[in-house]
């Protein structure tokens, strides 16, 4: 599934990023490397997300979130809405 479809409070593993190279690199540098964990903290209808990667929160536009392939982990973050 894509990160843009992610549910609030759910943890995901990053599987693949299919975005322009500079954007992909930027995301990797921010910690979104293969198999890294991402928790969705906030979400808008458009697919724009607030996520937490390696302890840092980011707001991520819908188009970016849509280019990130993820897989749900079985962990639900405590305190999810």
């Amino acid at each position, binding site marked *: 599934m894509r990160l843009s479809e992610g549910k609030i409070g759910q943890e995901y593993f990053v599987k693949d990023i299919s975005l322009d190279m500079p954007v992909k*690199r930027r995301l990797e540098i921010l*910690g979104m490397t293969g198999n890294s964990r991402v928790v969705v903290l906030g979400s808008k209808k458009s697919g724009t997300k*607030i996520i937490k990667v*390696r302890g840092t*929160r980011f707001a991520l*536009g819908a188009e970016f979130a849509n280019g990130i392939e993820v897989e749900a982990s079985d962990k639900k973050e405590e305190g999810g809405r």
Partner: protein
Amino acid sequence: MSTEINVAFAGNPNCGKTTLFNAYTGANLKVANWPGVTVEKKEGAMSYHNQKYKLIDLPGTYSLTSYTMEERLARQYILDDEVDVIIDIADASSLERNLYLTLQLIELGKPVVLALNMMDIVEERGMEIDLHRLPEMLGVPVVPVCARKRTGLNILMHAVAHHHDKAFDRFEHHHQSGEHEHSHHDEYAMVYSDEIEDKIDKISELLETKYPDIKNSRWHAIKILEADREICERYPLNLAGIADRSFEEEIISQRYDFIEEIVSEVLVNRDKKSHSTDKADRIITHPIWGGPIFLGIMALVFFLTFTVGDWLKGYFETALEWFSLAAVEFLTKVNAGGILTSLLVDGVIAGVGGVLTFLPNIFILFLALAVLEDSGYMSRVAYVMDGIMSKIGLSGRAFIPMLLGFGCTVPAVMASRALENNQDRLRTIMVTPFMSCSARLPVYVLLSQMFFAQNAMLAAYSMYVIGVVVAIVVAKLLSAFSKKHEVNTLLIELPEYKSPNLRNIRIYVWEKIRDYLTKAGTTIFVASIILWALLNFGTSGKVDDMSQSFAAGIGKLLVPAMTPAGLGYWQIIVALISGIAAKEVVVSSMSVLYGIGNIASDAGMSSLAAVLSASGFGAANAYSMMIFCLLYVPCVATIATIHRETRSGRWTLFAVAVQLAAAWIVSTAFFTVASIF
């Protein structure tokens, strides 16, 4: 030791770097630009134990790639040998991400001292960091500090003083799992996989043979393996058989693997407590409540800036009036002569003083913005407003300058600094002046009361709507013409909420005020004199009758051009030209040009209306003039601010041209349609 030690401050955005830098230097700093670019460069000086230090605040970056201007600047500055020690500021509460930059800084080969900031948050959350193991694993001194509470500052400088000429320690890696030992790498903290290390070795050798002067060939070799554009262009090599593709993904991944190893060893009790920021964000960035909360906060900022600010501004204006009268009295006493008196009083004092009266608004506005920025709220605005703004090709944060534009264009354009992307900033600066500022209101009031009687309110209100519509159209056009295909590029860190730091706010506000004062003293000073000369001089020298002035001559020249817009009257054109000094001036110029005293009174208005109607200037002309006033160049102060903010004469000219074109096109279109009926 007598020579200065250069200390560079490096760190991620939002790591508290500026707070720490401010804690050392105070307001005692030089703000300039990095050569050739619009990225701010801050420098400060201090001494510690009789040793002088020059402190340089590098741009906040997450990494040292060549993808962004800031990163290229930071790494080039460090490589260029001007730096003796790097203080790497890391947000200890977000160690995992912050260490990524640390590893790269260490790879640059300069002495690094790691300052672990925000240790208070770490403790608050019940986490602990092993301050013994961390320096062991990184090979650099680690000093815990709290920039906000100003603790640990002395120890940090002590570490800098003792470390600035130290060589690296040797490492005993225990994360070796490769087939062959890279024992010659035990001076490096970060050792990559055997495959990568072999390639680094080969490329280093090639580099050293082909470019014997190269310093730190290992770093350059890593960059070449990452296919870093800048480095690959500067040091072209034949890499056939060594690296036929970019290994950046593997390198990034391995760095994070090492970081995970560090974090698992040094961080105890990670994330025991639920973060208060997450709780606050649940409300503040709520899909439904986020918008209203933001509008409420902006309403408060607006109220403070323009209601409280205008109240203070009244006192400034009274003081200015008094000063200007005193100046006339003084100049008469010393027999300064009519021209000099007029120049000083009508030109300089009226022009510069008029701009200075905005100081209370600017002060309050930036105080409020500084609080929003420092508390961490500003980044949330980008998220909350992203949906609406991206529809017109602007970033979510552009909403703030545009909203402020309803108050005054000058601080609004200055507020565009909150936008991190240069392209977004320029576009925001282009559209902000179309928001109808408060100075344009007197023009609407005068014209609509004269020509629209009971519909006056509606006529004035419609100006605000037209302004917004034009802004949207221009924003759309600008993004349609921009070369790149723009996707929704929202990618921004949402830092922890914190209570604002007084020292940071004081320095932030003072910088803005100083900027504004400098501008009033230079650009506006010159512009005021030019406008004064145009309005007071003619071919026969100083003229008392404005109809003989150069401005009137220009006005008469422009009559044909303005006739399609229903504004082909030289007096109106001169009034509009004088309005470039400040929009309110349009009203006072009209009263002078048509020889009508107390123009704002009922009697004054009806006699002006009579004069205008007699010359064929009716309701359609009046509405067209209101549109023109709404859209054309707001004022000299705005032009000067746009120039200061874009630092480009071309963009400033473009902005002025767009404004004039928009004003002419829309008012002409309106007048043409209105003339049919």
